C-alpha cells in the first residue's frame, strides 16, 4: 500500500486543522526573488544598455543609463532600416491561423471521438494521439518535397499547414477530454428539441471554452518560436517570420552593439508586453491543459 493510500485510509483524514504549513515566508520570498532576478536580469541588462552610447555600453555594462550616457543612436539606426513590420505580420498571420485551425478542428474531432460510439473510435483516437510522441521535424525531408510538389514553398500556407498538423494530436486529445465532461443532460435536451448534431456541437463548444483556450495556448508558443520550418519552407524576404527575421535582422547590426541592443529590445518588447497583459489568461490556459 502506498503512503497515499495508507493515509487516505486513516481516520484522521477528516479532521481539520488550523495549522499552517511551515514555509518560512521570507525564505520563499528570497528564493523567488533570486530566481526572478535570474530570469529578468539578462533581459533588463539588454534593455538598459540599448539606450546608452556605444562607449558607455562597453565601459560599464551594469550602470544604468545616465544623462551623460543616454543615447538613442542605436534605435535611430535600427528604425531607419528594417522590414520588421513584415516579419511581425507574417508571424502573426501564421500563428493566429494555425491556432484557430487547431482549436476548431480539434474541437470537432474531439467532439466526435467523445460523443459517438462508432467502429474504430479507439483506433482512430490512438492514431491521432501518436503524433504527440513524434516530432514532426523528423519528416522535414518529405515535408519539403511535398510542399515543393504542392507549390507551397515560400508561402505562409506551408507553415500554417505544418503547424496545424503539428498541433492537432495534442489538441484532439485535450478536446476529447474536455468534451467528455460536458453534462449529458444538456445534449439530450437539445436533441429532444430537434437540434441537429451540428447545433449540439455549437452548444457544447460554448461550454468547453476553457479547453479551447488551453489548446490555443499550447499551440501558440511553439509556432511563434519556431525557427526550423520558416528556415526551410519559407525563407524568402516576404514570408520570413519574426523568429527567422530576427535572426537576419539582428545579424545586420552585429558589429554595432548600440543598434544590436536596440534591435533586440524592439524584437522582444512587444512579446513581453503582450505576455504581461495576458499572462493570467495565458497561464490559466496552460494549467488547465496540464491537468486534463
Amino acid at each position: 500500500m502506498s503512503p497515499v493510500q495508507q493515509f487516505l485510509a486513516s481516520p484522521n483524514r477528516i479532521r481539520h486543522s488550523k495549522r499552517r504549513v511551515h514555509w518560512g515566508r521570507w525564505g520563499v520570498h528570497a528564493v523567488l526573488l533570486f530566481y526572478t532576478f535570474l530570469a529578468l536580469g539578462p533581459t533588463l541588462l539588454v534593455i538598459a544598455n540599448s539606450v546608452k552610447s556605444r562607449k558607455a555600453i562597453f565601459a560599464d555594462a551594469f550602470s544604468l543609463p545616465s544623462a551623460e550616457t543616454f543615447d538613442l543612436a542605436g534605435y535611430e539606426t535600427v528604425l531607419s532600416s528594417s522590414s520588421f513590420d513584415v516579419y511581425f505580420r507574417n508571424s502573426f498571420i501564421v500563428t493566429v491561423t494555425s491556432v484557430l485551425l487547431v482549436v476548431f478542428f480539434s474541437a470537432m474531432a474531439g467532439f466526435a471521438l467523445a460523443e459517438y460510439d462508432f467502429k474504430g473510435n479507439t483506433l482512430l483516437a490512438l492514431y491521432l494521439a501518436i503524433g504527440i510522441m513524434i516530432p514532426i521535424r523528423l519528416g522535414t525531408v518529405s515535408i519539403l518535397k511535398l510542399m515543393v510538389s504542392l507549390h507551397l514553398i515560400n508561402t505562409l500556407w506551408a507553415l500554417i499547414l505544418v503547424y496545424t498538423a503539428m498541433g492537432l494530436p495534442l489538441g484532439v486529445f485535450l478536446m476529447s477530454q474536455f468534451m467528455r465532461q460536458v453534462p449529458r443532460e444538456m445534449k439530450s435536451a437539445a436533441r429532444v428539441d430537434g437540434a441537429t448534431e451540428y447545433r449540439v456541437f455549437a452548444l457544447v463548444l460554448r461550454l468547453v471554452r476553457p479547453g479551447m483556450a488551453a489548446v490555443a495556448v499550447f499551440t501558440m508558443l511553439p509556432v511563434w518560436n519556431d525557427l526550423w520550418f520558416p528556415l526551410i519552407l519559407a525563407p524568402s524576404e516576404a514570408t520570413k517570420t519574426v523568429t527567422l527575421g530576427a535572426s537576419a535582422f539582428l545579424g545586420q547590426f552585429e558589429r554595432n552593439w548600440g543598434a544590436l541592443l536596440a534591435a533586440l529590445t524592439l524584437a522582444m518588447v512587444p512579446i513581453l508586453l503582450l505576455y504581461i497583459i495576458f499572462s493570467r489568461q495565458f497561464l490559466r490556459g496552460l494549467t488547465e491543459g496540464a491537468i486534463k
Partner: protein
Amino acid sequence: MENRLTEAEPVVTEKLPPGGGSTVRQIPRSGSPARRRRRWGPILVFLMPATIIYSVFMVYPLLDSLRRSFFNDDGNYAGLDNYDTLFTNPAFSDRFWDALGHNFQFFAFHILLQNPVGLLLAVLLTAQSVRGLNIYRTMVFLPTTLSVVIVGFIWRLILSPLWGVTETVGIDTPLLGEPLTVLPTLSLISVWQWVGIPMIFFYAVLIAIPKDLIEASQVDGAGSWQAFWNITFPLLLPMLGIISILTFIGNFNAFDLIYQVKGVVAGPDFASDILGTFFYRAFFGASGTTGSAAMGATVASVIFLIILVGVLLYMFVWQPRVSTYEL
C-alpha cells in the same frame, strides 16, 4: 525547441469534483464514457479536417522519410546502404556518436536541473500565506515566451569576452568558445529559457491537491517535509514522468539554440554538435559543402528510433509502476 508544449500528455489525476469531498481512489486507465450511436454523416464531417491534415502533413512525411532512408539521392533503392554509411563511415559515424553523446549531456542538464528547479519554484509558488506569488509566477515564466533567437543573442552578448560582463562576475574563460564549457553553457541557457514549462505543469498539479489532505497529514504529526514526501510527491510522480519524457523528446530534437549561437558547424571542433545540428548538416550541408536528402532522412530515422525507445521505456517501464490518483 525544447519541451515543445504541444507534446504534452494527459495526467490522469482529475480535479476536485464539484461536491468538494476529497474521496481519492485509483482510477482505471481506460475510462469509457457513454457514447451515442449516430449516423455517419456528422461523424465524418467532424473527423475529416483533423484526420486529413494530420495524415497528409504529419503521418505521410514521417513514413515517407523512413522510406527515403532506403533510397539514394538519385531515387534508386539502396537497401541499408545509407545506414551502413552512417554507422561505418567515420566521416559520419564519428560525428554521429559525438552528437549522440552531447545530446545525452544536454538531456542530463535538463533532467537534473531544469525539472528539479521547476518543481522547487512550483512548490514555492503554491506556498500558503505568501503575498505576490502571481507576480513571481508571471516573471519566472517570462523567458519561456521569448524566441530562441532572442535568447541566443542575449546570452551571446552577455558571454562575449568583448563586453566584460562575465569578467565582472569573476569568469574570464570565454564560456561559449572553449570545448569543455560550451555544451554545459548552452545547456544552462536552454534550462534558463525552458524552466517555466515544468514549473507550470507541476504548479497545475499542486494547486489541484486539496489543502485538507496536507493539513490532515500534519495533524498526524508529519512535518512539512514529510508531508511533501508522503503526500504531495506521490501525487506529482505521474507528472514528473510526463515532463521527463517531454524533455527527452524536446532535447533530442533541439536545434534552434545551438544553430543560433554556434551555427551549423556547432564548434569549437564540433564540441556543441547535437543530433539536430548533425541532421541539418547531413540534409543541407554546411558552408562550402552540399548535403544529401537521403542521408538527412537516414539521420532523421535514427533520431526517430532513439525517441521511440525512450517513449517505449516510459510507457512500459515507468507508467505501469506509477499509480495515479483521482482526488
